[in-house]
């Protein structure tokens, strides 16, 4: 293979991307060397097993991916702004809508939410870390390297171009030769391992490590949403693992699962993909519901209305999420009975979702709302998400779906649920828990500016797309007809509004770091749940003493009884895990093995795989028992943080 086959050539935008990558990487290397920070990077971050630091790394990576996916989106919107524009060619356009979708779902939405879960869930249940901190680090690095593998495809080897759903036979070896599609398969596989491990880890953490006295139905609602999400992850991700493996075997080892030869069945891919894919939608939306519930209860200054109904509706949504997958391919040609069954089950999901909407409204009803930025995101979410949900029910009607299918109506629908649901929640959650992570709030003025730019931009972008869809504009076309010009142009303007909103948000991180007042109490928003009971910055052991839980909204009770998580009479040495570089090294090796497999360099792939196995053996013989934080150290830390 010559070099010009290895690197992507002939595309000015991609050359610019290469230059940018080289510049940014050299800048980072220079800065780390100049400030002698390599040791710091290794000791404090690359080897950490602390759930708070891992969470921060998740969120930083997710923000980078939001930038990447957003850049893809803006390029698409520019191309679609005018008829016959040649900003992107067809091939490049195909690659960009593929990577946009994949990056946003797999490498932005999920890690962003998992990052928030990492930081918040142990704090909310009064735990000192995850059940398996080592595995947690492993999960993060598997996500990180999976994302890296997927993202380098645009400069090395070429991006996948068969859509984020990667339907066969288009995505098969016959019609998509070369490494592009392999990057998709192995990048997702690599990060999927981590997601499954995180699901198990979170479930065990929540089931076994709650503070004394905390019953399941006294857990904060975000923790509940995490538990239900973990359940979905555990049962949905293995399906993706198998689907990806089958297509990989098809492409690399010549099997006939999804091919047109050998009596293969290409639609089986769609079936398997959506059996994972639909639960996946709820993996990214249920934690969002959890975040909004926390934010709304905090800033309405009330206990969440209908807590039990909230929990049960989430459980019901989780169960139904496994029973609706066919609505993604009603037009495949299955019989009327199949489509009817899945049409009905799809519409059923609107019921528990409706319950949740009314519960949020019930919480807001007659409350004194405090209009902070996180609360604004939550308030904007409710009506926006309802629009997305209602159009979803329209799409769920199989007969009508024959009209909506594959049109911009669908594009508008899923952006309305995923942006108004998940992305708003990511912003709300990040701003809400920001003081817990970084010891200062984000500036409210810039926060609100970015909120308004983003939300208005969002509606301007996607509302016209419903009508474009009704006007017959299909999705995934790179060139618009003149009759669709006006609405597309408006949509593009909106997209730049969203981009501007994101830019202001990022600027706000820097601005607030420089100017915001530092937190003193740890209870930044007069919070209701346990995470606000810790001082900020949160000591690495989280809780000096575990509180005893009496009911819902544990911290409200504690404040009433004047209790804290630092009870000097109850202090005991705390057992904590040691940092380790093994997860990073193991996943780096797996990354290299996957990279070799992308190019079908078998010897190299096996060689690195042996390296991974060696790392597992090392782990098996590892006798690291962790260390104890002594009482004196806890006392000093807590007194200093609490200003005693």
């Amino acid at each position: 293979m010559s070099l010009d086959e290895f690197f992507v050539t002939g595309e000015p935008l991609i050359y610019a991307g290469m230059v940018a990558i080289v510049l940014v990487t050299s800048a980072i290397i220079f800065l780390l060397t100049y400030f002698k920070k390599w040791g710091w990077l290794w000791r404090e971050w690359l080897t950490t097993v602390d759930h708070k630091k891992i969470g921060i790394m998740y969120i930083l990576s997710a923000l980078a991916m939001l930038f990447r996916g957003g850049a893809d989106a803006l390029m698409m919107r520019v191309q679609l702004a005018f008829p016959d524009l040649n900003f992107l060619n067809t091939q490049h356009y195909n690659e960009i809508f593929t990577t946009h979708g994949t990056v946003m779902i797999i490498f932005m939405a999920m890690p962003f939410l998992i990052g928030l879960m990492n930081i918040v869930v142990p704090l909310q249940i009064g735990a000192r870390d995850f059940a398996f901190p080592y595995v947690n680090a492993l999960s993060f690095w598997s996500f990180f390297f999976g994302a890296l593998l997927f993202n380098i495809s645009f400069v090395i080897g070429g991006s996948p171009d068969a859509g984020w759903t990667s339907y066969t036979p288009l995505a098969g070896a016959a019609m998509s030769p070369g490494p592009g599609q392999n990057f998709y398969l192995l990048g997702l596989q690599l990060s999927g391992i981590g997601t499954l491990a995180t699901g198990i880890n979170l479930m065990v953490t929540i089931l076994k490590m709650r503070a004394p006295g905390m019953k399941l139905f006294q857990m904060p609602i975000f923790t509940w949403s995490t538990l239900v999400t973990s359940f979905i992850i555990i049962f949905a991700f293995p399906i993706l693992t198998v689907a990806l493996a089958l297509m990989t075997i098809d492409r690399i080892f010549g099997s006939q699962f999804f091919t047109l030869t050998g009596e293969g069945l290409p639609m089986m891919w769609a079936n398997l993909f959506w059996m994972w894919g639909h639960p996946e939608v709820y993996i990214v939306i249920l934690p969002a519901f959890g975040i909004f519930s926390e934010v709304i209860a905090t800033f309405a200054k009330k206990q969440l209305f209908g807590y039990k109904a909230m929990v049960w509706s989430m459980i019901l949504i989780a169960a139904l999420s496994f029973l609706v997958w066919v609505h993604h391919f009603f037009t495949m040609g299955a019989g009327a009975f199949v489509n009817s069954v899945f049409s009905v089950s799809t519409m059923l999901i609107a019921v528990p979702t409706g319950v949740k909407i009314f519960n949020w409204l019930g919480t807001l009803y007659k409350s004194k709302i405090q209009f902070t930025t996180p609360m604004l995101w939550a308030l904007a979410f409710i009506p926006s998400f309802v629009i997305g949900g209602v159009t979803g029910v329209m799409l769920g009607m199989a007969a009508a779906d024959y009209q909506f299918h594959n049109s911009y109506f669908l594009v508008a629908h899923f952006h309305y649920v995923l942006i108004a649901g998940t992305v708003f929640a990511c912003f709300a959650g990040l701003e809400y828990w920001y003081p817990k992570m970084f010891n200062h709030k984000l500036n409210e003025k810039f926060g609100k500016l970015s909120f308004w730019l983003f939300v208005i931009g969002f509606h301007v972008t996607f509302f016209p797309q419903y009508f474009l869809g009704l006007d017959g504009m299909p999705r995934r076309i790179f060139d618009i007809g003149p009759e669709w010009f006006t609405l597309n142009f408006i949509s593009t303007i909106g997209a730049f509004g969203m981009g501007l909103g994101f830019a202001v948000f990022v600027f706000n991180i820097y601005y607030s770091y420089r100017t915001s007042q530092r937190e003193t109490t740890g209870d930044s928003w007069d919070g209701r749940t346990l995470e606000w009971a810790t001082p900020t910055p949160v000591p690495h052991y989280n809780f000096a003493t575990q509180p005893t839980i009496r009911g819902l909204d544990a911290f409200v009770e504690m404040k009433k009884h004047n209790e804290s998580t630092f009870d000097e009479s109850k202090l005991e040495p705390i057992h904590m895990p040691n940092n380790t570089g093994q997860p990073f090294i193991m996943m780096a090796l797996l990354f290299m093995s996957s990279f070799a497999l992308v190019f079908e360099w078998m010897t190299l792939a096996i060689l690195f795989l042996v390296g991974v196995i060696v790392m597992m053996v090392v782990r098996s013989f590892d006798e690291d028992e962790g260390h104890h934080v002594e009482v004196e150290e806890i006392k000093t830390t807590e007194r200093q943080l609490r200003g005693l």
Partner: protein
Amino acid sequence: MQSNVKHTPLEYQTEHNQMSILGFWIFLAAEVVLFSTLFATYAVLFGRTANAPLPSELFGIEIVLIMTVLLLTSSFTCGIAIHQMRHGSNSGLITWLIITLVLGLGFLGFEIYEFIHYSHEGATLSSSAFWSSFYVLAGTHGLHVTLGIGWAILLIIQLYKKGITAVTSRKVFIISLYWHFLDVIWIFIFTSVYLIGMVI
């Protein structure tokens, strides 16, 4: 239950051990779904043999029955190993684990022989959708058995070095769950692949 600690097997005695075992159960639940996806693929692609031989022409009951008995017995001996562990007998534990491994290796040997035999008859991974799904389903199970054997060897070394401790007993208990689970999966492969393949 006053003497609770006394009755509790060593592998359950620390909270960390309990969590590891619980985590592994949850992982097994995920594995159930993983294999079910392979079963679903096999079932949907059943009959799509193209020009390759039909399963009923190749499957023979003798070899499959031998494999089944080998694996069932290994699952039993693995259970005896855990029984020995709870008795506190390290040598008994190691002996029964080694017997389990030998039976597992025997199973693998027959599986490899079977695969080679089928491919000589013209049924390979790439000859048709049906045979792809057969090889990947049975092969994934075989790969699990292989991993289990490698893993168990590591544990036997640790048992030699350290004896039965809270850590090693937890690890051995977890691999016993894994090994029994592979038998559960094999029961379904035996029934829905081989028996049904010979009936239809």
